[in-house]
């Protein structure tokens, strides 16, 4: 919402400075987001009077002028304008000025041998108009040396406020003035409501089909108008706030839209068919050529004003081209109505029309001010365009808006946190237009017709507070619930930052990537259609991600394109599989990838490309940090399809899959465009069981006083036997004594039969009550070999 300072002063009698006004506006909730004074750009330009103008010695079309730019100040300027003549007052630019039209800095220069100490300017050069036939011609009484801005009436700062959607009343300058007056910045000037006495009876009949869509409709004819350009004051006002003046009839409606928040519409009466206007729902398929030059196909439910031939305008949004006013218009029909805010908003949204009328109607107009609006607009049209007005045809009625709110002034302290004397509260509410009756300790408050947003006690607290000033509310510490605060997160929530820090400690960089990805990529990871956005911002951000792997592979691809091929990235965040009663299936997963080389070239050894065991190691470290005993995990070598079928697995705790790890399937890398090796892992944080330990005490630590011993076993086993199975068999041979079994060698080749492999395991044996005898050790070894043979068919390597 924009207005100028002088426009504001039409409604507000104030001696406050612009700064005070701006600060107050922001303080009371009408946030000032811009103040621009067009005169400021013109500061360098002063009035110059041409004293003499003589022909340039070396050029036919140039003159050398002596220009008076101050009491005793004369400068010599070379000028090519045909209208440069002695006695002319015009705009003078001194050297160093920036010419608005070109943006260039004016320099002292010699023109054909004569030095020019400045420039005389045209309207166009100062960006004040299109005229470039000659230099500006200023009034004869202009004073040389004075700035031209004020002379041209341009010294009127334009104020822009950021209007919140609840304040329909301040979409008009008068509403802004009223708020400022209530805030003590002057007095609201009275508005006289003088109806225009009709010169003749009869106008178009009006039928409202649905009074909920249009509660009230006023119409009148004005005969014999003469449309033309608006007077300068009106054109200047509209120009200042960024509107193009069109013609007096159109400009008057725009003026009241901004002045009183009272949009009106003016039809060319000659172009209305029949003798009746009907306010009705559009019929689906009806077409309106709107005033913005665009054609709209309407749907049922949109409120239109129609004549016997069809739709003339979209109620509360925009008029139609066919019934629009032109320079030839002589009889007009003025419409001043109320339209339902909700329907106006829906229609505007559906048709994507933003208009100043819609902006106001969808916020809700003052229902009490319809007659006033009609009178004021008629009066101005008669003044500017002449003619005579008919009586007003009224359809519908002013909707009920009066209400009483029981308001306890004590609520300003108990809700607002600051005590304001009831008398002061009453004064504020009264100044805002409320009726206030004292009923014991309470007020009975009647909000004014223009404040539909005031619905209850809390709204009135805000009204008092914002006028009193939020800065008066003292900072009050929030009372402590306990002397020492308790943790803000529970055990499950705490895992998220832990997981992040664990992974970062392993050299992975945390990424935060979009929750949505390209639908084509999502399909490769098994998404469902229900996870595709109905209105994605672009095709590559169209579908809720079923995995973070794809995002990270994309990120690695971007990094590779920048020359950073070896990436170690992770993200802990949401994925969505579309399951569950609400159809979201959101879960929090930790996901990481490593690409390129795990170890680069180095003098200590060869470069090592990333391999699936890097990813397995990441996943196990994470699970272990979350309290899962890695020894209890099993690997199921049937990974999801986006992994390499032979180089990946699921990490399971009993039947529950906690995560995945392995080499990413080359088809996925091809689809995303990543070259080189890529391994990854996922851990579903929600699936990882919470440790069941109660309290903070650790279980008792029992330490053997006997030294453990180790023995190595080299087994030969079929190549298809998973190593994990053999290790498990070895460990299970005597759970009391065998405390660890580590696989330290894997061998195939000469000495081992084809189809077989050698696995060497170091077993740690812990004596409990006495040191082992040779017989003890032999007995355990025999059990180990037997268990391995039984579970895996392994034999000791000979």
């Amino acid at each position, binding site marked *: 919402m924009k207005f100028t300072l002088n426009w504001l002063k039409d409604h507000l009698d104030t001696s406050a400075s612009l700064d005070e006004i701006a600060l107050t506006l922001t*303080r*009371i*909730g009408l946030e000032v987001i811009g103040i621009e004074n067009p005169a400021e750009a013109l500061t360098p330009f002063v009035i110059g009077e041409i004293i003499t103008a003589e022909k340039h010695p070396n050029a036919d079309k140039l003159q050398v002028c002596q220009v008076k730019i101050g009491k005793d100040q004369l400068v010599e300027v070379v000028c090519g304008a045909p209208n440069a003549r002695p006695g002319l007052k015009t705009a003078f630019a001194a050297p160093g000025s920036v010419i608005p039209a070109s943006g260039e800095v004016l320099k002292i220069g010699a023109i054909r041998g004569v030095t020019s100490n400045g420039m005389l300017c045209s309207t166009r050069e100062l960006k004040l108009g299109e005229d470039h036939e000659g230099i500006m011609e200023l009034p004869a009484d202009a004073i040389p040396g004075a700035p031209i801005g004020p002379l041209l009436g341009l010294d009127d700062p334009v104020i822009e406020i950021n209007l*919140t*959607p*609840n304040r329909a009343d301040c979409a008009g300058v008068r509403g802004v003035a009223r708020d400022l007056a209530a805030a003590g910045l002057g007095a609201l000037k009275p508005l006289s409501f003088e109806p225009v006495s009709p010169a003749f009876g009869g106008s178009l009949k009006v039928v409202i089909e649905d009074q909920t869509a249009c509660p009230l409709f006023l119409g009148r004819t004005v005969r014999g108008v003469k449309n033309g350009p608006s007077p300068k004051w009106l054109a200047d006002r509209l120009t200042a706030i960024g509107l193009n003046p069109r013609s007096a009839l159109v400009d008057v409606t725009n003026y009241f839209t901004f002045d009183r928040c009272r949009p009106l519409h003016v039809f060319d009466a000659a172009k209305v068919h029949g003798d009746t206007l009907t306010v009705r729902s559009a019929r689906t398929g009806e077409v309106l050529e709107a005033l913005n030059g665009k054609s709209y196909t309407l749907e049922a439910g949109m409120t239109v004003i129609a004549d016997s031939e069809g739709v003339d305008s979209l109620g509360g949004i925009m008029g139609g081209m066919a019934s629009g006013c032109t320079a030839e218009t002589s009889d007009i029909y003025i419409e001043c109505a109320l339209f339902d805010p909700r329907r106006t*908003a*829906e229609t505007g949204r559906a048709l994507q029309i933003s208009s100043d009328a819609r902006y106001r109607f969808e*916020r809700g107009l003052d229902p009490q001010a319809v007659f006033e609006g009609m009178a004021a607009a008629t009066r101005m049209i008669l003044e500017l365009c002449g003619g005579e007005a008919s009586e007003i045809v009224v359809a519908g009625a002013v909707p009920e808006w009066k209400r009483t709110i029981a308001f306890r002034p004590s609520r300003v302290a*108990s*809700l607002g*946190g600051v005590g304001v004397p009831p008398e002061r509260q009453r004064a504020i509410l009264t100044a805002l237009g409320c009726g206030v009756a004292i009923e014991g300790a309470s007020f009975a408050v009647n909000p004014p017709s223009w404040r539909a947003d005031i619905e*209850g*006690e*809390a*709204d009135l607290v*805000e009204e008092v507070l914002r006028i009193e000033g*939020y*800065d008066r*509310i003292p*900072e*009050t*510490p*929030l009372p*402590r*619930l306990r002397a020492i*605060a*308790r*943790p*803000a997160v*529970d055990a499950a929530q705490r895992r998220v930052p832990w997981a992040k*820090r*664990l992974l*970062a400690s392993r*050299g*992975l*960089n*945390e*990424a*935060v990537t979009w*929750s*949505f990805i390209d639908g084509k990529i999502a399909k490769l990871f098994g998404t469902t*259609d229900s996870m595709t*956005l*109905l*209105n994605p*911002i672009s095709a590559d951000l169209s579908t*809720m991600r079923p995995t973070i792997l794809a995002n990270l592979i994309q*990120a690695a691809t*971007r990094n590779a394109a*920048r020359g950073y091929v070896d990436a*170690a990235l992770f993200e802990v965040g*949401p994925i*969505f599989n579309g399951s569950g009663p*609400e*159809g*979201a299936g*959101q879960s929090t997963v930790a996901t990481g990838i490593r690409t390129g080389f795990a170890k*680069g070239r*180095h003098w200590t050894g060869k470069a090592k490309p990333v391999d699936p065991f890097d990813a397995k190691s990441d996943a196990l470290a994470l699970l272990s940090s979350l309290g899962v005993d890695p020894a209890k995990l099993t690997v199921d070598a049937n990974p999801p399809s986006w992994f390499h079928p032979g180089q990946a697995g699921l990490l399971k705790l009993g039947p529950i899959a906690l995560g995945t790890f392995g080499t990413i399937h080359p088809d996925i890398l091809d689809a995303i465009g990543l070259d080189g090796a890529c391994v990854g892992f996922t851990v579903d944080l929600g699936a990882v069981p919470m440790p069941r330990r109660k309290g903070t005490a650790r279980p008792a630590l029992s330490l053997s006083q006997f030294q453990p011993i180790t023995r190595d076993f080299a087994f030969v086993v079929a190549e298809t036997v998973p190593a994990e199975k053999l290790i498990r068999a070895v460990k299970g041979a005597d759970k009391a004594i065998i405390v660890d079994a580590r696989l330290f060698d894997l061998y195939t080749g000469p000495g081992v039969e084809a189809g077989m492999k050698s696995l060497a395991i170091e077993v740690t044996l812990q004596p409990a009550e006495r040191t082992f005898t040779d017989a003890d050790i032999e007995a355990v070894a025999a059990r180990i070999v037997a268990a391995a043979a039984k579970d895996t068919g392994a034999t000791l390597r000979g």
Partner: protein
Amino acid sequence: MSNGLETLRDRLLQAIAGAADLSALDQVRVEAIGKKGELTQQMKMLGSMEADARRAAGQLLNVIKTDVETAIAERQGALAGAARSAKLAAERIDVTLPAAPEGEGHIHPISQTIEEITQIFAEMGFTVAEGPEIETDFNNFTALNIPPEHPARQMHDTFYLPPAADGTARVLRTHTSPVQVRTMLNSKPPIRIIAPGRTYRSDYDMTHTPMFHQVEGLVIDETTHMGHLRGCLTEFLRAFFQIDDLPLRFRPSFFPFTEPSAEVDIGCSRKGGQLKLGNYGDWLEILGCGMVHPKVLEMCGIDSTRYQGFAFGMGIERIAMLKYGIPDLRTFFDADLRWLRHYGFSFLDQPSLGLGLTR
């Protein structure tokens, strides 16, 4: 006799001193005091001597033996030291060679900032609440006093998903406020929560991304008023930005879910095109807040005649950008390794009020 022994001693000591290495020294030892060594032989011969001569010779021999043994021990020490030195000298390497590089990981500024926020609000007795990012239209809008036709819905550029199986309209939450709704529906006052998380709006330009993070705050009890809101936010912002005199300005504003509503500005300076936070006279908008609207309380099953409280919401990227001098919002989501290394945090930088929020 004694002259002969003196000579023997001198010869042995000479031999010990001349032993070039440990094995040569051992050879000398064997020859001197071994089973068949010269001194041993002399000792053995004592038995065949007269008593007086034996005493004198015995004493002399014991002295010589002690001298020899001491000399051997000393020589042994010297030779072992030299051998160790020689071995160490041979083991010299170029220690200026580079050690093997280790990949260094980093924590994203968003995570770090959320942990900082959590630390500060934990101190004020808040707990962390969470909610789903795919929300119902009711939780995201209706329960927050934003009916379908409300102009405020246009303030949110909402992403929509196909309706759930039961026909419920589904949206990507446009703010973290639905967590307020869920918390109030599922618990009884007093309530003191923050809800950090991802939010989504269909907007993508220099200063907007279709996904971003917010933190929501909600306090509901019987007495909390707007003064507490000011106090709480002032404490938070000063602790977070680590500026003890950071000024705050509350401006009246409008949100459908709060009444009264306020926007909060913090003090700053924009001199020379450089944004600097502090008490410098200029203002920067930082968050929106207000007293929870009675209609929202009622919609969430809380008696608005008895309970009241405040809510606030702020952009996490925004405050992270301000605190850490990150110039461009869009870079947060690009996963550029150079950016992550530059703006990221060590895993050891766990925010803590007791140990300092930020290193």
